């Protein structure tokens, strides 16, 4: 079984968010980067699937050299090798094009992405990769087992779950539940990571389809007002006069 896990290098969830260059560019200064959590969970499940059967796990990132620490973390978690497409990750189509280009002749059985990266939350890359490779795309994968060359997949749908089966190859975008918790790299994994291949490939040319005009930070959260349970009148008044919600 050959699995490709596409990971993105995103700011730590507690990082301070600010922008530079006229609010066009995210300010990476002093920010710690991590593997985007849904992809980390997908990678964890991929490792379990490999350990239960056999096979190889490759991780892929579209990013510059500063993405390598998170890639080596993926190797420390247990991936066998890594590929970095040497370009800044731009919009979803650009990233999908780069992934598809790497994957097209490699015969991966499963390609995992996250259901979204937690920085720009585009939720498009997995589907686009599937389309570009002309293979099925399964979104919101919250559980997966493999029997032979068939994926047995649980998808989260509104209010419940859907069980589906899909023959290899396919793209699955992982979400919460695909693995209970991300795997913590063990000492042995960390020490092996430096000996594993991290291959760098140059990007294919592709013109971005979108441009970022500006970013705006959300307004600071206002304080929560507590109202006694028996004071419904006050709740109605506040909703009407202050929140102007009714």
């Amino acid at each position, binding site marked *: 079984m050959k699995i490709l896990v596409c990971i993105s290098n995103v700011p730590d969830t*507690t990082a301070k968010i600010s922008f530079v260059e006229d609010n066009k560019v995210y300010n990476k200064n002093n920010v710690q980067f991590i593997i985007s959590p849904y992809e980390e969970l997908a990678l964890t499940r991929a490792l379990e699937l490999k350990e239960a059967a056999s096979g190889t796990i490759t991780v892929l990132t579209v990013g510059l050299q500063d993405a390598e620490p998170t890639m080596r973390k993926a190797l420390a978690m247990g991936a066998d090798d890594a590929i970095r497409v040497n370009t800044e990750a731009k919009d979803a189509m650009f990233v999908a094009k780069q992934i598809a280009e790497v994957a097209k002749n490699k015969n991966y059985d499963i390609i995992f992405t996250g259901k979204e990266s937690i920085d720009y939350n585009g939720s498009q890359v997995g589907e686009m990769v599937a389309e570009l490779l002309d293979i099925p795309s399964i979104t919101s994968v919250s559980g997966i087992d493999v029997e032979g060359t068939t994926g047995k997949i649980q998808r989260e749908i509104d209010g419940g779950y859907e069980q589906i089966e899909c023959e290899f190859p396919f793209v699955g975008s992982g979400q919460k539940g695909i693995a209970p*918790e991300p795997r*913590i790299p063990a*000492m*042995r994994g*960390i020490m092996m990571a430096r000996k594993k291949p991290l291959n760098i490939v140059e990007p294919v040319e592709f013109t971005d389809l979108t441009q970022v005009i500006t970013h705006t930070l959300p307004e600071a959260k206002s*304080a929560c007002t507590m109202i006694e349970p028996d004071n419904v009148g006050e709740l109605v008044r506040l909703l009407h006069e202050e929140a102007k919600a009714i």
Partner: protein
Amino acid sequence: MEDTKITTGGEFLIKKTEAKDIFIPEEFDEEQRMIYQTCKDFLDKEIHPNLDRIDDQEPGLMRDLISKAGELGLLGISVPEELDGFGQSFLTTMLANEAIGASYSFAVAFMAQTGIGTLPILYYGNEEQKQKYIPKMATGELAAAYCLTEPNAGSDANSGTSKAVLSEDGKHYILNGQKMWITNGGFADVLTVFAKIDNDRILSAFIVENNWEGVSLNPEEKKMGIKGSSTRQIFFNNVKVPVENLLGARGEGFRIALNILHIGRIKLGVNVVGASKIAINHSVNYANERKQFGKQISSFGAIKHKIAQQAILTYASESAVYRASKNIDDAIIEAKKNSDGKTNANIEGSAKYQTECALLKVFGSEALDYVVDESAQIFGGMGFSAEMPADRAYRDSRINRIFEGTNEINRLIIVDSAIKTAQKGEYDLFGKAKEVMAEINNLSPVLNGNESYYEEKQKYIAAFKKAILVTIQSMMDVLKRKLSFEQEIMMNVSDMIIQLYVAESLALRVEKLNDMKGDEAISIKKDILDVFIYDVASEIRKFGLDAINSFAEGENLKTLTNAIEHFTKVGGVNTKDARRRIADTIIEENKYNL
């Protein structure tokens, strides 16, 4: 050019160090950071959600957590690869210990397992002993404890009465005795037990397995803090210890005990840095959430002062502990090169820097006590509630000033070891001290007014060293052999040395960081340095004056007073604004971010 590399413990008292020659934590590499992160992830997953269960001593839980840490390889970080460990450097081991420091009772169990539990056998065991026990300790299959203290032998460890007598057939030592305050005692499989053979004056060490006949335990001690850590009395009643389980040579036990404690001390010094950082996070989280008078309390100057001071002490402590750790790492590498195979290079490395190990333990544990005390204060009424994290941190901190040698014993060690190392001729403390004594009747200004920012700090530090040398030399001149009876004066000198070492380490770190990252990126670090030097100057002055007023008289006292005041004079600092800037960066990010 003057040689500025530190090559032995205590030498910092007389030698100027260049910023480029120290290690700073910003230089940790990617792999080391990954190990740190794995420790943190482990705490987030296994420890922090279970703190109450751990403190309730849920049966089997702590033992299970030790095993889980073992599965991740965290118990074998410093164990050589040939014994199934990961052979990491001392610095890396220290970094992992910092991360684990944020885990309250678990940190104590972890330190006992990987430090005093494993190291006596690793460093003093013969090949068979090592092969038998160490790989299993590194994976957590075996839990370990260290049995030194007895009801009547605490700080005076060699006065213990546990006794081992060779059996008639010469195959066993029959061990009898009582040990107390044994960390991990409730579940440890392997114990390093210190006892005297026959009527020896000096302790020997034995490897004892807890399932041997005659080993029994008292119930868990009820403690003020670290409630989740297993602490027991252990009794040895005619325990048959096979002769091959004597650790090291007969009579070597006391040396083993002391040498293992040097390492334990510096590790504790880094452990408390991790504990301080999490306590600051809790403090600032609460201060940013809690509103009074219509504002977050983090907007008030009184609270900012506390947050800033917590951060200053933590950052300073961290600077000093990693500086010394690198010195020890270098000494270990050097010792390995010149090894005669008789002594362990790791032991040599840390024993060489025993002055630093002791002072880092004292400074770090007292810094943490400040941090957790003010954390409880920032939480206000909620700080007194056992539902809030300030409570556990406050109670758990207190033990750090007591174990691994009380801070009083460690203060005596600081002065004693610095002087003894010099008397052995390893560095010229007294030559330098005499030079300074010759200077004090004709003092010249510390600054000439043309110094750069860092030159000025370095000159202050050089002058602080002179204040210390004057105090030490005059103390020895007046008190001579009576010195050891004057513990109060030893404490004063010790405090001067502690403050100096930390201040110098901080100054060197900020200077090196400036070279690495540029002026703008480190402005908060310069605020920290400004405030710390300003505070330390007055502390060193006070301790110096306390000391000399305790033994000098007349003209001599006048000259010494003048000298100490001269050497501890520093320029004024707007500490209020500097502290506000330090606090504001932490408040803005809602976490310790230095």
